[in-house]
């Protein structure tokens, strides 16, 4: 007689340690959360499975309707897709149409309290995309674009995933080691593998923290985001059609801010570990912001706003037997390229699940190694952001920093070392480690010292 499989909460059982658990033909996989991490995981899991002739059933649980405007259909972020993600996904066969990308970007203007510098991609190629994660801000009308998250989820469904609209309320482990998922008002479903990609701005993670003794939620920080309607003409006249504005201003509590043009709207996003309403007001009323926004723009007249939390420190133990945690609920890149981090972690997890196995040891051996590399890179990122924090209050250093970038624009691309450094910091297109090491180049250091000296002389003169 077949043994009855009873649900047991994770924390109340001895979790199986070593396992030979593998995905087989007919295995069932649950993905909780249909944001980028969940969609990428589903897409690559099915892609790898097809490559090895494995037939899987993948159910993605996502209650959110990404075609609804406002916070209800939005996963809340600045909505920048980095050049490395756009390039690598293109190689993987996933390209983003102009109905999803609001604007292709080729330029960053970097503002400090001592001036600004303009950085461009080679040949002004549009390598960065700005998107709405949902269907756009509250009250949007005649929207020409689709949700970025909705587009990725559709890719996963086209690959063979099933989209289930239920909200997951309960997760438990069965006696045979498999996982059971129950939605509000729905029947319990058992799965061979569970991927948790629910984000950090929902309550779902509490379920896992309660039931999985080893998992610890990631370190989070609150961000501020507002959407302003300006219209295409004003955006193109004042901000530039393909330009992201990046601010490194000396406002206590604020690390960075960006004004990101979308179709008819601009997104104002602030990052820092001491953000509050006063910091936001100080930023919106600062001279560099007034300089780039239209003269009749009113900071208090915004279309939509949110204060999502983002991951700044990876979750502890983001895997267990037949379970893996992805996206912001696991690890992200410090302050940058959250979509890129979701793509990388999701793909590592999918490759591990199909090509290695779904046991705790499999995830530890393969997925965890890649995860830790991202965590180590974030530590280097923290060092870099500390250096930038030291520069920001010193006007002469800001002047040297900007002037070095401005002077470099006359040089060949491979000699624009400060520009590359800042480009990497702004866009998140290179690992922090690589950006950090580039600062030890003798030519970079000598030029930096020369500009610092020159700015000091200018100040004292």
């Amino acid at each position, binding site marked *: 007689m077949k043994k009855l499989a009873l649900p047991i909460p994770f924390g109340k059982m001895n979790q199986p340690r070593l396992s030979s658990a593998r995905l087989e033909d007919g295995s069932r996989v649950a993905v909780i959360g249909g944001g980028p991490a969940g969609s990428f995981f589903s897409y690559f899991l099915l892609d790898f499975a097809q490559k090895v002739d494995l037939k899987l059933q993948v159910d993605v649980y996502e209650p959110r309707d990404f075609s609804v405007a406002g916070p209800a259909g939005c996963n809340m972020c600045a909505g920048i897709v980095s050049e490395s993600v756009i390039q690598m996904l293109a*190689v993987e066969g996933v390209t983003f149409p102009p109905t999803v*990308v609001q604007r292709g970007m080729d330029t960053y203007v970097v503002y400090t309290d001592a001036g600004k510098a303009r950085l461009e991609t080679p040949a002004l190629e549009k390598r960065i995309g700005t998107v709405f994660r949902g269907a756009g801000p509250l009250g949007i009308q005649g929207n020409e674009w689709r949700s970025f998250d909705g587009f990725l989820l559709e890719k996963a469904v086209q690959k063979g995933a099933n989209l289930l609209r239920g909200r997951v309320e309960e997760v438990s482990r069965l006696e045979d080691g498999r996982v059971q998922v129950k939605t509000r008002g729905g029947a319990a479903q058992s799965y061979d593998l569970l991927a948790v990609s629910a984000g950090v701005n929902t309550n779902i993670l509490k379920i896992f923290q309660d039931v999985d003794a080893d998992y610890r939620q990631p370190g989070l920080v609150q961000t501020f985001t507002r959407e302003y309607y300006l219209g295409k003409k004003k955006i193109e006249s004042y901000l530039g059609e393909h330009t992201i504005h990046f601010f490194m201003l000396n406002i206590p509590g604020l690390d960075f801010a960006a004004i990101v043009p979308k179709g008819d709207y601009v997104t104002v996003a602030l990052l820092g570990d001491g953000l509050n309403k006063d910091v936001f007001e100080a930023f919106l009323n600062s001279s560099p912001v007034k300089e780039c926004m239209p003269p009749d723009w009113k900071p208090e007249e915004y279309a939509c706003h949110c204060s999502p939390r983002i991951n700044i420190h990876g979750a502890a133990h983001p895997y267990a037997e037949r379970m893996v945690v992805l996206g912001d609920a696991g690890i992200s890149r410090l302050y940058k390229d959250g979509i890129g981090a979701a793509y990388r972690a999701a793909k590592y997890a999918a490759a591990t699940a199909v090509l290695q196995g779904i046991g705790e040891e499999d995830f530890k051996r393969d997925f965890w190694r*890649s995860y830790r590399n991202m965590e180590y890179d974030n530590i280097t990122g923290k060092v870099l952001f500390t250096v930038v924090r030291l520069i920001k209050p010193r006007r002469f250093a800001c002047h040297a920093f900007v002037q070095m970038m401005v002077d470099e624009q006359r040089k060949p691309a491979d000699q624009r070392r400060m520009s590359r450094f800042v480009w990497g910091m702004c866009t998140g297109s290179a690992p922090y480690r690589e950006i950090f090491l580039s600062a030890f180049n003798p030519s970079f250091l000598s030029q930096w010292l020369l500009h610092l000296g020159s700015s000091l002389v200018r100040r004292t003169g």
Partner: protein
Amino acid sequence: MKTGDLGAEYPDGALIFRQGDKGDCMYVVLEGKVEVYLERDGQVVPIRMCREGDFLGEMALFQGEVRSASARSVGGVRLLTVDKKNFLRRIKEDPTMAFRLVQELSKRIRELDEDLAVLSRALQDCMNEQIN
């Protein structure tokens, strides 16, 4: 070009890269067509036509830095550049990145094999005619 278009546009007939040039990137076709061709004794020998989703220029990433063929836009094309350094770094981090490239190269070898078989057959027929 729409505001959300990515990559760079090349008008009809525009040269994307020339045989013998130094190459430090590959391209992905986002929209339109690209003709890849060889220049032999002043003659243009078409090799293949790249369409949406296809790669070109990838050989320079792996076999030295010199382009083995030329490429030009046919009727206007939009291309996305993939930097050599970014791409090789990603392959180092994630070797499965190379799967699609290997798949594409395998497809091309298969097509070349078929072309070779057709040419070989034609040559054989020609020789038989000459003998007869």
